[in-house]
């Protein structure tokens, strides 16, 4: 995680809790990065909203 992201977590839970969670958080972040790469590979429009119903 970058410094800004870590600072945001520290602001939320405090430095001590961040230190306790840091290793698990970094591992989880690596998998989030993989998910983002999967999403970047999708082409298409950027919709403004989402409709559950299908239009024919």
């Amino acid at each position, binding site marked *: 995680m970058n410094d800004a*992201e870590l600072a945001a977590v520290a602001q939320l839970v405090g430095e001590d809790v*961040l230190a306790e*969670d840091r290793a698990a958080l970094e591992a989880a972040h690596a998998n989030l990065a993989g*998910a983002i790469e999967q999403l970047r590979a999708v082409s298409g429009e950027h919709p403004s909203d*989402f409709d*559950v*119903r299908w239009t024919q």
Partner: protein
Amino acid sequence: MKWQYGIEEAARRIAARELSVVEYVSSVLDRLAETEPEVSAWTYVDREGALRAAQQADVEIAAGQHRGPLHGIPFGVKDVIDTAGLPTEGGSKAYAGRIPDHDAATVRALRENGAILLGKTVTHEIAYGQNFPPTRNPWDPSRYQGGSSAGSGVAVAVGSAPGCLGTDTSGSVRNPASVNSLVGMRPTTGLIDGSGVMNLSEQLDQVGPIARTTVDCALLLQGMVKSRADLGPEDIAAAVRRPLNRPRVGVDFAAWHDWGVSTEVQAAIKEAVNVLASTGVEIVDVSLPELSLALPVTLVSCLADALRLHGSALSDRPEDFEPGTRVMLELGCAVTEEHLTLARRARAHLRDRVRATFLDADLTALVSPTLSGIPPRLSDLSTDLTRESDEADLSSALLLLAPANVCGLPALSVPGGFVNGLPVGLHLLGRPYGDLALFRLAQHYETAVARPAQATLRSGR
């Protein structure tokens, strides 16, 4: 024993005055007391309140004020769904002592239809699936119990409720249904009012029913919907039993392999597909590799939404969250607006591909296993949603379930066979507002295989 009556059977006997509501509710409560030491499915049981409501129901029915098939039927509610005056703590110390003033819309609707609230069932903490609740799998207590609606599934399986409500962000109703050999439904987004829930992600979450049969599950859903007309005819049990007109189901066998579905589960669900084929359902080979996009969309959406919804509690009391839940909430800080835009784009792409596949092949449903394997042993389990998939990792399970939530589609798990003596679910994904068609297809299969769905505890109870 009266607790063994499912919703439809009990409703018929109550309406015919062959069974009093007090008799039925008392029997279910006794069953709960008998099984609970072994399975730990409940966090709070309102025995007095349930018996009081049962007495009132008997008075009303005797006076000719019968409210319908749910009048006098007891039910349990996952501990993330609000119940007025009863604890709703989301399975978390961070929310200990939280007692809502109002029922969730689904609970209110069921009570207005005469159903009787028994209490609250165990959930993974805030339904995130990152911790280890005390609930035990009645088929094998050494194995994963299903989740995050863990208690709701187990309670129905052992007969401590004929039906329960769960919530489903990426399969949390269908997963315990599969593990416990039950029917669990994630309704179309918009079919029910989801207010009054401690959500993980409002855009993905849906309250859903779990019951022992398809008709029981449909009766429970009918009692929860915003508009009954959006589900089907008033006599929903008869509607579920009405045959479908030339049903066609799509199957992507290659995806099962690519997604790591075990050989044994593939074989069991192929056999279930063969049963459908032999009873008049047309099977269509389809290819939908895009379904795998549902997992990254779910992850990004959940991380951002969960932090927004639970960030205040996290900030106030970080030590009160389980470590796994806390890390997932913290990880929400790494999700940016750009990531959310990417997730929205992938969601729209997936929705369009699913829609095109259904329309091009004229499908009633897409069929798959509910879970990729039999429940892993608790000692081997990693619940971490962000890990790469392996045999004991639950993220692989989400692959087959998350597309329904991401696309807002109805999906259902019906008992689909056994592997090594453990239940496996047959998963049906349907069209928007095609909830009744899924119930009909599930009923078609259930009738064809005529399989009992009652767990027997190791103690013999």
